[in-house]
């Protein structure tokens, strides 16, 4: 699945989020816009930590992503970030790259879905 396939309901619990925002879609647009702005920063932080094999930095980056994903009720991204934060041994780095890759993909999907929501399509 690529980013272009994603809809809000695929990447997050839209009902839960709507309840939290009391159905305020304008507010959701504001928050989505904030995510769209912040997303490249979070992604870059994760990828640069992976490239430098800096485990504490990877875990810190994943931790932040987990917070953001939790706020958006984006369960798949929360789960992937949680795995990355909780992993104890990354061995030769192959496994961590794979995990970070999966998380990056999920973030792209979330980003794409929120962009679509913002543009009204």
């Amino acid at each position: 699945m690529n980013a272009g396939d994603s809809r809000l309901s695929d990447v997050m619990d839209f009902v839960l989020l709507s309840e939290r925002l009391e159905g305020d879609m304008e507010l959701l647009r504001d928050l989505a816009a904030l995510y769209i702005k912040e997303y490249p920063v979070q992604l870059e932080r994760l990828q640069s930590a992976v490239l430098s094999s800096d485990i504490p930095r990877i875990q810190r980056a994943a931790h932040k992503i987990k917070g953001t994903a939790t706020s958006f009720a984006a369960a798949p991204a929360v789960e992937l970030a949680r795995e990355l934060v909780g992993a104890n041994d990354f061995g030769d780095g192959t496994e961590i790259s794979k995990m970070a890759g999966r998380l990056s993909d999920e973030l792209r999907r979330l980003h794409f879905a929120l962009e679509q929501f913002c543009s009204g399509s």
Partner: protein
Amino acid sequence: MTLRMIEHRANSDGNRSRPIQVLLIEDNIIDARFLDVDFQKRGESRFLLETVQRLDEAEKILRTRHVDVILLDLFLEESQGLETLSAVRSAAPDTPVVVLTSLNDEELALQALKHGAQDYLTKGVVDSHLLFRAMRYAIERKQVEVDKRLLEERSIQMHKLEALGTLAGGVAHNFNNMLMAILGHTHLLLEMSGDEDVKRHAAAIKKSGERASALTRQLLMFGHRETGDLVPVDLNKIVRDSEELIRSVVGSEIAAQFDLMPRVVRIKADPIQIQHMIMSLVLNARHAIRSSGLLVIRTELVETGNQTHAQLTIADNGCGMSPETREHIFEPFFTTRGLAVAAGLGLSTVYGIVSQHAARIDVESVLGKGTSFSITFPGLTTPAGAA
């Protein structure tokens, strides 16, 4: 007699009229924004949320002004885990901290509680109602903790001063008896001797003896052994009668402001001792102000429980005291000016006078900003309609 050392503390009560000031320390702007939404949508006007992204910004705020509760993300860019908590606790030891983090880790939660956090909540697990409740409970728990600690400190301080008073009073009493014998014989020498040289020496002994006697009287006052008659008097009148003396003591560089209740403020007291106490506190303020400044003398009625009490406050905008100095100010012979300059008995005498009147003295002081002494009297207050 109750001695109360007031510190910067949360104003916690069930009927608070002002909103609860919350400081959120969170460097994830999206999480911060979501929380802000929760506060706006569900916090009503009970909470006032302020967000900072950096630890040093938070420390600056916490060191300069009051916050009711801190919501803390332990994992910031510049500080991680318990290190973040320690930094915040050190900046505001009496402010409750509720940890709010993405990491659902039982061990870390226990460690955070051991390190002084009031609660540990996980983002996404806790909803806004639970969060608000956790903050309110945290404030109350912390207040109980702070009150308990202050009570213990007060109790230790009072016992220390009582022991010092017993010792000083005992020594002064015996010393005074000996002085009376010395002064009596000196008086006889002055009366009986025709030798001018003897008279001159006897007069010198008498003068020194009288000075020593005045000193022992102060110590006796501190040790509660010098009691005068307590009679119903008007506190305002005592202050007014001292006004001229106060103005001459503080000089023209210090503005003396008298905020007296426009009616009789009745207390049961020894007016001479109260005047003595006022002058000691005024002298203390004059030394604290050093050059120019403001001295305020105020009388008012305050409510304690369901009782009304007369209160006298003497406040200055002088140099203030450090908490370390404040701990010792009522001890005899304690002075910040050196014993060659000051006897160190002024405030211990004040303490003795307050004790004899079964009153309470509260001290508030901020280094560099000033000091305020408030004496709350028991018993009689203003009769209704009295003017």
